[in-house]
């Protein structure tokens, strides 16, 4: 009986230690989330400006570029943006599941895996992984997005795929993210032409010329889209981890409460037993 009590106390202590760790991870995730949000915020003016220039190009000059040309789809590529680490609830499996669903409907599916979780997932399922990017780190750099973008565009231009989709978690708020997929290539023409907000700024002058600017701008725009996705994924990851660690911490608290109650009961039982033994012994002596 006393052995049982010791065992329970040992378990209480171990759960307490776990709770310390999950509580610390939660706080770390919260502060990283704040930083990630800040970075996402900081990148917005540029993304808007690039998009603005692109829209102006579309309005003022006919846009024609391989990136905008639809072609028969024999092979498709999905860029899957996940995290390297787990302990973030259903965060990664949600994205991977969205990816599988998307790829199921596409001919010739291939994958570029960003983050260890996507790589492992799609490798296990024997998908054709054409490239993988792990070790992005907590602070996404634009050059990382550029590296992915150049791989993607190289593939697209060499005919390795006819369509590229980007699957990533869209950051809704600290505890919610939603997996979304957007078509990266060919760039949806409607995206550019439809958005003709008619800024009414009049004719633009392009130097060297519209085609020249477009030539430089489009690859850049792909990088920007990927960069935004990486930033949102980071913020979402930290948010998901914060939520997961918060509930883990709360669960640990519940386990501790329950075990503590059990330990009291066991202790009380032991005492009662000892008393009854003593009383029994005394009665026997008197007899």
């Amino acid at each position: 009986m006393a052995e049982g009590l010791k065992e329970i106390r040992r378990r209480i202590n171990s759960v307490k230690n776990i709770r310390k760790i999950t509580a610390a991870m939660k706080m770390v995730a919260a502060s990283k989330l704040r930083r990630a949000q800040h970075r996402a915020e900081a990148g917005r003016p540029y993304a808007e400006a690039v998009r603005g220039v692109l829209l102006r190009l579309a309005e003022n000059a006919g846009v024609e570029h391989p990136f905008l040309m639809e072609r028969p789809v024999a092979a498709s590529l999905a860029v899957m943006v996940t995290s390297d680490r787990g302990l973030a609830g259903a965060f990664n499996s949600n994205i991977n599941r969205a990816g599988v669903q998307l790829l199921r409907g596409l001919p010739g599916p291939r994958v570029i895996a960003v983050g260890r979780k996507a790589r492992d997932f799609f490798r296990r399922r024997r998908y054709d992984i054409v490239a993988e990017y792990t070790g992005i780190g907590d602070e996404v750099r634009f050059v990382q997005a550029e590296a992915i973008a150049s791989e993607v565009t190289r593939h697209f231009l060499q005919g390795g795929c006819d369509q590229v989709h980007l699957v990533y978690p869209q950051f809704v708020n600290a505890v919610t993210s939603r997996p979304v997929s957007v078509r990266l290539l060919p760039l949806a023409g409607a995206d550019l032409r439809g958005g003709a907000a008619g800024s009414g700024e009049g004719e633009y002058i392009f130097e060297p010329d519209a085609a020249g600017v477009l030539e430089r701008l489009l690859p850049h725009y792909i990088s920007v889209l990927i960069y935004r996705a990486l930033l949102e994924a980071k913020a979402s990851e930290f948010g998901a981890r914060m939520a997961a660690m918060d509930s883990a911490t709360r669960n640990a608290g519940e386990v501790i409460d329950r075990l503590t109650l059990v330990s009291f009961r066991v202790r009380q039982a032991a005492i009662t037993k000892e008393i009854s033994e003593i009383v029994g012994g005394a009665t026997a002596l008197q007899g």
Partner: protein
Amino acid sequence: MAGVIGVQVVTPERLVWSGPAEMVIARGVEGELGVLPHHAPLITSLLDGAVRIRRPGGTELVIGTKGGFLEVKPDRVTVLADAAEVPEEVAAEFGPQEEEA
């Protein structure tokens, strides 16, 4: 003078500088160009180099830029650089460190 023009210098990672200016001088692929308020709308690719911003009051700010584009609207100039550095920030990073080791 015909007033001022709003200037914004942005890179993918951040907003580097924004404020009013009397004139902006940048190195476009077709040559150096100076932009005054009410300039015709223009979009140009930029060469590596410096964007010079003449601020109201006569001081000039030089921002080092790499690649990118310049968009001009009558009331607004946006420099979209791949990377950009403001002198004070460079000085803070590489200059003599005064406080603590």
